[in-house]
């Protein structure tokens, strides 16, 4: 019984959300533009036999993957010329019966198709999350406090509070595996015995450079000093070696609960 209520509640919420989004969605739908609609009709008459109703290919190539369409900034109007003159060497006939306006409509339709399919691919945050959220949050929590030893440095109530709200879901997945921002620190021991701490800026086989605690850049040849490096991400690197893909998805699902 309670499960049924939950289901009903879910459907209700889903339908309200869908409703609320509808008008905005229609407004930005590139397929709704008048020239695109005209172009779609013309495309069905003249082009779909070879290129498929959605321009995704048939006997002829998938136009949505054509360099001509995808690299619009390079090719500009070239697409119109191809539609008009055909590609006789590749078996595509010319279409002299199509007016310049007709061709412009077909071009608008094709660009709209590219836009729609690429926005489907990058999709909304919700849809991205749907694909990514395949793990078990409870197992992820166990990993966080157990095997992963994440709680040694992190806490859901502290630095990770609201983490799922701070980052888009696909970014969060990469972020928890190996964070982007990293401040490696170094302690440089001078021959005098003086120790200088700072943010590590450069460390190769020959010299070390840091920004010291007063904000000044300083560098030394390696033969003159001893260097101790502390990389806060070394634990993350160790974990990369040991994660199974299930752990990755479980931990991610757990982090997504930290709204």
């Amino acid at each position, binding site marked *: 019984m309670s499960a049924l209520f939950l289901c009903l509640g879910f459907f209700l919420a889903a339908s309200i959300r869908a409703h609320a989004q509808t008008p905005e969605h229609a407004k930005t739908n590139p397929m709704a533009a008048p020239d695109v609609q005209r172009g779609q009709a013309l495309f069905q008459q003249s082009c779909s036999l070879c290129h498929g109703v959605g321009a*995704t290919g048939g006997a002829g*190539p*998938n136009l*949505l*993957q*054509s*360099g*001509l369409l*995808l*690299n619009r900034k*390079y*090719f500009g109007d*070239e697409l119109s010329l*191809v539609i008009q003159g055909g590609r006789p060497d590749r078996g595509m006939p010319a279409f002299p019966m199509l007016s310049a306006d007709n061709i412009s409509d077909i071009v608008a339709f094709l660009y709209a198709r590219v836009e729609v*399919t*690429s926005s*489907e*691919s990058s999709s909304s945050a919700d849809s991205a999350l749907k*694909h*990514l*959220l*395949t*793990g078990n949050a409870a197992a992820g929590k166990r990993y966080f406090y157990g095997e992963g030893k994440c709680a040694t440095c992190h806490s859901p109530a502290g630095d990770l509070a609201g983490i799922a709200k701070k980052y888009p879901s*696909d*970014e969060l*997945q*990469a972020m928890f*595996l*190996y*964070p*982007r*921002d*990293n*401040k*490696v620190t*170094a302690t440089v021991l001078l021959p005098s015995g003086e120790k200088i701490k700072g*943010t*590590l*800026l*450069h*460390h*190769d*086989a*020959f010299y070390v450079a840091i920004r010291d605690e007063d904000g000044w850049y300083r560098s030394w040849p390696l033969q003159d000093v001893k260097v101790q*490096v502390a*990389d806060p991400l070394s634990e993350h*690197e160790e974990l*990369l*070696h040991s*994660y199974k*893909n299930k752990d*990755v*998805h479980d931990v991610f699902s757990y982090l997504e609960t930290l709204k």
Partner: protein
Amino acid sequence: MSFRTLKRLSSAGAAGLLVLASAGCLLAQNSGVKNSIPSVSDSWPTFNGDTSGRRYSTLTQIDKDNVKSLKLAWAYQTHDVMLKSTPLEIDGILYFTVPDHVWALDAKTGEKVWEFRRISHGDHLGQRGVAFYKGRIYFGTADAHLICLDARNGKQIWDVEIADVKLGYYISVAPLVVKGQIVLGTSGDSSDVPHFIEALNWETGKVIWRTDTLPKPGTPAAKTWPNDRVMSRGGAPAWITGTYDPELNLIYWGTGNPHPVLAGVVRPGDNLYTCAILALNPDTGAIVWYFQPSPHDTHDWDAVETPVLFDANFNGNPRKLLAQASRNGYFFVLDRTTGEHLLTSQFVPTNWAKGVDAAGRPVPDPAMDPQPDGALVEGSEGGGTNWMSPSWDPETGLFYVNASNGYTLWYLELGPHNLPLNHEGGYSVHLLDKSVLLALDYRTGKVAWERKEGKGMNFSGILTTAGHLLFTGDSSGNLLALDPSNGDVLWHTRLGGPMDPAPITYQLDGTQYVVAGVDGVMYAWSLSGSL
């Protein structure tokens, strides 16, 4: 080889720690087997110096004892984009490129002799250099043309279209001259198109033969695709210049990934001849044999890295060998006469494959294919290595490669009807990359010595010389001269930018020069410094 679109920039900042591994290796001494393809000496007339791909020069004026006295001889400021081409040196003139641009310099002074500029629309990712034959320069362009120039003055002699740029083709390779033919292949990984390798007449630019890098419909190789239509989506571009054995009369050329790039689910099968090493007859273009390092690739593991040719003992017998450190993280040794497989080994840790089959090919692990929720795979996003040229030194018997370790998330994106929405069919997010210079024993694939460079990428190529030297760049902006037997640093200088191409060497009027392109500047070093 689209170096995968990085959805996340690498963590900037401090370079990592350098660890020089102990070099207690037994050198794979090449006990007196003479290389049937001679090594380059005074000049540098082809992309790889000679046609073997070894990038080993017999010059000895600069050697391991005096290299510490190397001085800057000259520098030439191109005021252009980053140099990615290997220069040629012929009769005192250097020829090198960036997309849309060729320069000729005095190889002793760096003085400009001429420049050729031709603005084109198309992919400007990289231009690897020109070919020279009978006083002419051959230059491939971003709009997939081949231009023939008069080497004396840079005047254009002809311009032929190799492929239609509108479909996403361009030319990145330096052409290879074989029997008076200009051999090149097409590049491009932005649309679903088939690729090819072809030979042109040096005088006229007319096509002599053209070999599609996908099988002909109906042939047994075509059965490695679900059907001809899926196969026609193409792939197998020819990004990097091949090698040539005149005695065996064979050209060796690597091919790139299948399409769609990451969505292998729509193209079950090995997908020949993508991610393969092809042995071609230079007279007809016929494929004599092939070996496929990455069957059914789903990680953009182009097998285009230079197929390096050398003669050496293998299991006690002298053999004509071909070795490739492939982008998929595996090192392969083949008999280059027949294509017989001799050795497969991992040169960087990676887990996209679950083993190696009887033919020596890694077997993909479907769990490590790109997934809708992401697959964490050990291995750098750009592969175990990439376009950077390797080297093989006959004195040490070691194969040198700038390699990369790391971790990457691979995503599959399918649309309605489970079809890929675009040419990629997914995306990748790189997490961590660490570069390492490796010296591999060709007999075992084992690492003889390594030079770890910490976090970051290194795209420098490698040069070895009979002066017992190895020249390369590191990921921290240094040019290094190393002892090729153990990796010890003998000399270094700070370059002020990344060195993307490989260094070269030549000797003119009694002076040996080492030349390297760094960012937009061409530098030359010699023992005496400037003239």
